[in-house]
């Protein structure tokens, strides 16, 4: 029973990280209809920057803030310089550009910081809480992960639903032409959407780095599972990203705990196919009539 509890708690904290990646992928999808494979490279680079800042200044929170700001700036630059020319073109071209950027960022990180994975400090202790005589597999760092991702999801929801900037963002994504006629600077809104998404992604990097270590390729599985979670929940739905992340995190944790970690990727395939067979556009996407 205690093993089940541990696996559940582990699944929740891992699922929250997938949810953060899924949120950022979903924001970019809604804004520009592009699946951004470079996200994995972008939050890898910001986490490396945080690592360097923490090492030189000694302050974790300074590195934390610098990483988020860098994520915001990198997201804006990438959209403006690389993605703008392929927006509205054949969708696969944009996918290949983001893949090229992912490879380029991984190579640059290898050049600057070396290929050997390094450790990354957690924000809080990673020793599990003690209940009675039992050490839970859930630490203050895990709690921080869950709270941080949920807080960011809530902030995003508030931003999109209750501010004018959010309204402009939604309008640009929903009907760019109409929004432009109403005086919305659609191009700027797309840049802002990418910047915000990259910020959320860099949060995921900071949260996951203590447990998977920091290296040019260490975040690849996180990106794959984050994308799986986004597809599971429905790319068009922010609550879907959180729920998709949770479902995937829990399933993978149970499979790893009870059936062996070799089956984790196969389990993610089975879960995804099972869900998509029932709901082909993810759990939370409203059924939409295909345009004739």
């Amino acid at each position: 029973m205690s093993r089940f509890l541990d696996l559940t708690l582990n699944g929740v904290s891992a699922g929250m990280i997938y949810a953060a990646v899924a949120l950022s992928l979903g924001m970019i999808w809604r804004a520009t209809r592009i699946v951004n494979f470079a996200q994995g490279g972008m939050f890898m680079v910001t986490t490396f920057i945080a690592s360097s800042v923490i090492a030189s200044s000694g302050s974790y929170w300074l590195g934390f803030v610098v990483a988020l700001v860098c994520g915001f700036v990198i997201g804006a630059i990438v959209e403006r310089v690389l993605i703008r020319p392929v927006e509205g073109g054949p969708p696969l071209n944009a996918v290949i550009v983001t893949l090229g950027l992912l490879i380029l960022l991984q190579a640059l990180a290898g050049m600057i910081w070396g290929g050997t994975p390094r450790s990354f400090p957690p924000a809080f202790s990673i020793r599990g809480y003690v209940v009675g005589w039992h050490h839970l597999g859930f630490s203050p760092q895990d709690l921080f992960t869950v709270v941080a991702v949920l807080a960011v999801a809530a902030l995003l929801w508030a931003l999109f639903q209750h501010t004018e900037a959010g309204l402009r963002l939604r309008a640009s994504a929903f009907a760019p032409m109409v929004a432009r006629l109403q005086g919305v600077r659609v191009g700027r809104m797309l840049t802002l959407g990418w910047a915000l998404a990259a910020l959320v992604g860099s949060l995921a990097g900071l949260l996951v780095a203590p447990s998977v270590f920091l290296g040019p390729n260490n975040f690849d599985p996180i990106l794959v599972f984050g994308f799986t979670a986004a597809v599971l929940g429905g790319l068009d739905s922010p609550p879907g990203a959180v729920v998709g992340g949770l479902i995937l995190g829990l399933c993978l944790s149970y499979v790893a705990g009870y059936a062996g970690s070799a089956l984790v990727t196969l389990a993610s395939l089975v879960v995804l196919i099972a869900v998509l067979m029932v709901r082909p556009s993810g759990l939370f996407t409203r059924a939409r009539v295909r345009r004739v």
Partner: protein
Amino acid sequence: MSTRERTRAVRAAEAPAEAPPPRVLRLPQWTLPRNLSLAAAIGVALWLLSLAFTPFNDLRLATGAYYFVALAGLMVLTGLNGQISLGHGALMAVGAYTAALLIGREHWPLVPVLVAATVVAGLVGIAVGAVAARLRGPYLAGATLALAVGLPSLADRYPGAFGGENGLVVPPPTPPASLGDTFPLERWQSWIACLAALIAFVLLANLVRGRYGRSFRAVRDDEVAAQLAGLDVARMQVFAFIVSAACAGLAGGLLVVVTSLAAPGAFTLSLSLALLTGVVLGGLGSLAGAVWGAIVLVLLPTWTNDVADSLSLSGDVKANLPLALYGIFLIAVMLAAPGGIQGAVRASTAWGRRRLNGAQSAAQGKRAPSEE
């Protein structure tokens, strides 16, 4: 405007303004003889190349040949039928493990092994295609991505059957004794791979130009219109996936023949992504694009390594420079040539022909024919 008038107007617009300029070499217009003669010409050229090549280059030719088979299959799926697949590396793995098991354990001869690899992957393609036909866009991408990551892990889970992390090692094919004792193994491997690639080329080229090719394109361009025209959309999508998976299986079987090894390390996510990249870089929508893609996938890594070796750089920078150049190449081609290499080639030949026609007409004192 009455219907008949409109039809006439459309016909007039579609008809070429004047007969195309006579070309020196003209391929027959019937599909099958055309493709067969093209394949024969390419085959002779490849045969002469393989004779001139060193063993190392013969091996690269063989590698390019099996990449071409996989890319051509993906081209049918993504370029003609509009379905994205990030999971073709996994389908290649199916073909490769089938071939490795049949060669290593059952000692089957080569041709049945390759046929079996194709058929087994095609059967897997039925299942994957049935799932894929329900999914669109990023959801299909996500599902096939999960396939690319998930399926190869079976090899780790069942090390008894699939050799685990080290994979299955098989003996290489032996060249027939009639070719002489000194005949290099690599050349024999390149002959096998090229012959298989040519057969796949003829079959696919016929498919692309025939009824099924047209149906695939109709489904890609507009599902509703295709359905109204009486096509079974889901069936066409599943069929495209089967063809594509069978090609991936043949490519996997050839990979085992060329490398004598089927191991999970060869079928990572990078392979699936490289295949998709090769198809888009080469130019979606034509088999010529698959040829370009195969050339890029074979030559680009060598070229980037040569560049990195020629510069005197420190360890980390040197080790990562090939990867960085690869990334830059992907971005640069997509920004400079959205139609891929084949698209750029086609645009430049069209431009050249226009220039030529313009020069001829000017010489004859006539107005250049306008492009319709």
